[in-house]
């Protein structure tokens, strides 16, 4: 009937990259948890922060705002923020918001790590 999911957020490490992997819809109710997890990952000053969206079937502008904020913090920290593995529906909202050219977006997590 519905494949909406309650949001879960996983934090993983690979080499010197920290990976934040949310699973579920990112909307106004889920964005604060994502913001908090990304901010926590950033406090460890990784040189590379990857947000893996493979498990995100839906995102609204609350999610986009969270990612824009994370990118600005990463820039101030001289860190690299890469978003990877967007599902088609989520890619289309990045395009509508004209953010597909603003973020570094990788096809896969492997690409994001070697980018």
């Amino acid at each position, binding site marked *: 009937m519905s494949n909406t999911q309650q949001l879960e957020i996983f934090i993983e490490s690979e080499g010197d990259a920290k990976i934040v992997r949310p699973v579920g819809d990112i*909307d106004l*109710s889920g964005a604060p948890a994502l913001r908090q997890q990304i901010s926590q990952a950033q406090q460890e000053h990784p040189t590379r922060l990857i947000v893996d969206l493979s498990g995100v079937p839906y995102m*609204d*502008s609350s999610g986009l705002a*969270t990612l824009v904020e994370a990118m600005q913090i990463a820039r101030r920290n001289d860190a690299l923020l890469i978003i990877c593995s967007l599902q088609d529906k989520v890619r*289309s909202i990045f395009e509508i*918001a004209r953010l597909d050219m603003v973020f570094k977006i990788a096809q896969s997590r492997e690409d994001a790590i070697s980018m």
Partner: protein
Amino acid sequence: MTAIQTNPVVRLEIASQPELLAGARALIAAMAQRCGFNEIMCGQISLAVDEALCNIIKHGYNCREDERIWISISITETEPKSIKIIIEDTADQIEVSEIRSRDLDDVRPGGLGVHIIKEIMDVVEYEHRQPRGMRLTLIKTNKPSQARENKEQKT
């Protein structure tokens, strides 16, 4: 104002809680599907409604969770099919001209919702309700052949 005369077939009333957006989206997507929209478009139409609801919760009701929002949905019976969604609240009335997104080039968190709504829907009309609150009318017509044209005109 609009060519659609059908009575609303579905009316939804929700409390102003972010946790209820998922339910509203699921309903809108299923109704859009009844209108023949493909999966991507159903997702986009429910995104437009989600953005409008977020704005009412954030700006209209200042994140108070005990307020109410009403959504009514009608679908035309004739081809090309359209979905019309009317969203109403009882928040303070603001000037319609103040409802607009930031300049897209000035990248910063937020300020994208109204832009997203306008990109997705064919008709986006804000007005004051009587005696109080705002009313937003959203319409999307399922014209596969014209979809491309519309988008090009708009951008």
